């Protein structure tokens, strides 16, 4: 009996430690840890032998969002969520549930700026940009969090955040749209969800945990844990470049200056690299210069004939 209780306490902690601490490349260590645990605990479940999932091509067309089944969550067998998450067939409902947990964790690290007008403004602009995408019906949420760091975050299912520090760097509404567009791009292409899936650790421990938790809610809690480092975790370069390309296009589609996102990147590139406010951003993203070079290459002549968009400078909501 005691043993079980220890297990229930240890596993989530271990999972959090592995997901958040160790690199995913160290899957060998994880297997070793698991083996040891299995030997010591003679647990009923064994982790399925998992292969690292190769990164999916970034241009996977997103399935049309299925309608969210109201209040289906409690009946949904937890194993189904696990299989869905690990097998790559997450429903929108599951995606949102996972994002909710991560968003709540992130807000635990930095709360929303107490400025209702600001938050509503960012939500209007953000949703207008997201409406130009192939997933307009996700429950999109946008928030400015109270941190002087310069950064922005996305979580699955439509959660997008930027810091007050980054907001202060913006000169107009088009630049805000560009930053939100980049994060929307991460959500659209499920970059963080894929990161979760690709983790052998999650796969192995997930199979393990699936038999121990009561319901889906607890499962998600266990899978994601309490930390929010997943949102700041370095995605691969291609994912960042892809989000830049999407961000630029969505900005233009929404009627804004298509060059607003490159302008923000250039501005961020101007912040000294050793400045504390950008240390996490620069650690988890390619250098702004590389991102601009990639965008220049991707754009080529493709913006010829794109109507001149708005900057929205005059109506841009200024922080007090």
């Amino acid at each position: 009996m005691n043993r079980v209780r220890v297990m229930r306490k240890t596993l989530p902690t271990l999972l959090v430690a592995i997901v958040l601490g160790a690199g995913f490349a160290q899957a060998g260590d994880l297997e070793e840890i698991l083996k040891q645990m299995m030997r010591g605990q003679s647990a009923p479940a064994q982790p399925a032998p998992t292969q690292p999932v190769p990164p999916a091509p970034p241009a996977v067309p997103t399935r049309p969002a299925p309608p969210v089944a109201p209040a289906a969550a409690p009946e949904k067998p937890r194993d189904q969520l696990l299989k869905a998450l690990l097998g790559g067939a997450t429903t929108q409902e599951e995606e949102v549930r996972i994002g909710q947990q991560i968003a709540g964790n992130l807000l635990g690290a930095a709360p929303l700026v107490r400025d209702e007008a600001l938050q509503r403004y960012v939500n209007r602009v953000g949703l207008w940009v997201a409406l130009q995408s192939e997933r307009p019906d996700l429950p999109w949420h946008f928030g400015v969090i109270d941190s002087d760091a310069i950064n922005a975050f996305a979580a699955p299912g439509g959660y997008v955040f930027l810091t007050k520090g980054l907001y202060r760097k913006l000169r107009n509404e088009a630049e805000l749209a560009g930053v939100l567009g980049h994060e929307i791009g991460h959500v659209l292409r499920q970059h963080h969800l894929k990161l979760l899936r690709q983790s052998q650790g999650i796969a192995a421990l997930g199979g393990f945990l699936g038999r121990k938790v009561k319901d889906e809610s607890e499962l998600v809690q266990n899978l994601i844990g309490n930390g929010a480092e997943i949102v700041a975790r370095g995605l691969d370069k291609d994912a960042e470049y892809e989000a830049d390309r999407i961000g630029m296009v969505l900005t233009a589609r929404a009627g804004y200056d298509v060059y607003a996102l490159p302008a923000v990147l250039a501005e961020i590139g101007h912040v000294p690299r050793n400045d504390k406010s950008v240390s996490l951003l620069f650690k988890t993203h390619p250098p702004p210069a590389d991102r601009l070079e990639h965008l220049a290459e991707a754009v080529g002549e493709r913006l010829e004939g794109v109507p001149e968009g708005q900057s929205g400078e005059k109506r841009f909501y200024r922080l007090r």
Partner: protein
Amino acid sequence: MKATLALLSVCLLSAPAFAAPGVMLRDDDLRTAPAANAAAVGRVAKGATVDIVARQGGWTRISGGGRSGWVRILSVRTTAPATGLGDVLGAVEAGTARRDPGKVVAVAGVRGLDEEELKLARFNAAELQRLSGYASSRAEAEAYAREVGLRPAKLAYLPNPKRQSNQPKQNGSAFPWNEGGL
């Protein structure tokens, strides 16, 4: 003092010694100001070597062949090594960038957001609830766009250039906004 500052900024603006060498990545109009509705005073051809002297918003100021003006930020890149000249360009920008007098620079009590804090973050249900309260409806967002005159434009997603052509990446190419620079 004021005169000295003004003189200094004029020097920074005009002195070619502060410029970084660059190359045009595509044909572009040369404009008198960093705005799409500014008069075009000529055209610069792809491959042309120019001096990069400033940046503002989505625009880069270049000079060369006795002409100078603004081109789109993605139309030009520096051919200077990432070190040294980048810093010089940083100085150029520091001298020319529009300063926002209302901008408050935090000097104390900077609230960062580092990995450690994110790792230790605990779920905050109240803040999540607050976030939901701020969400915009589709109708609201569309009404806003109408009100401010945002017109949706058609533009296909940009394909990944790395997948199309496997051209080896040029070595040592650096934008003026490279590390420590613009």
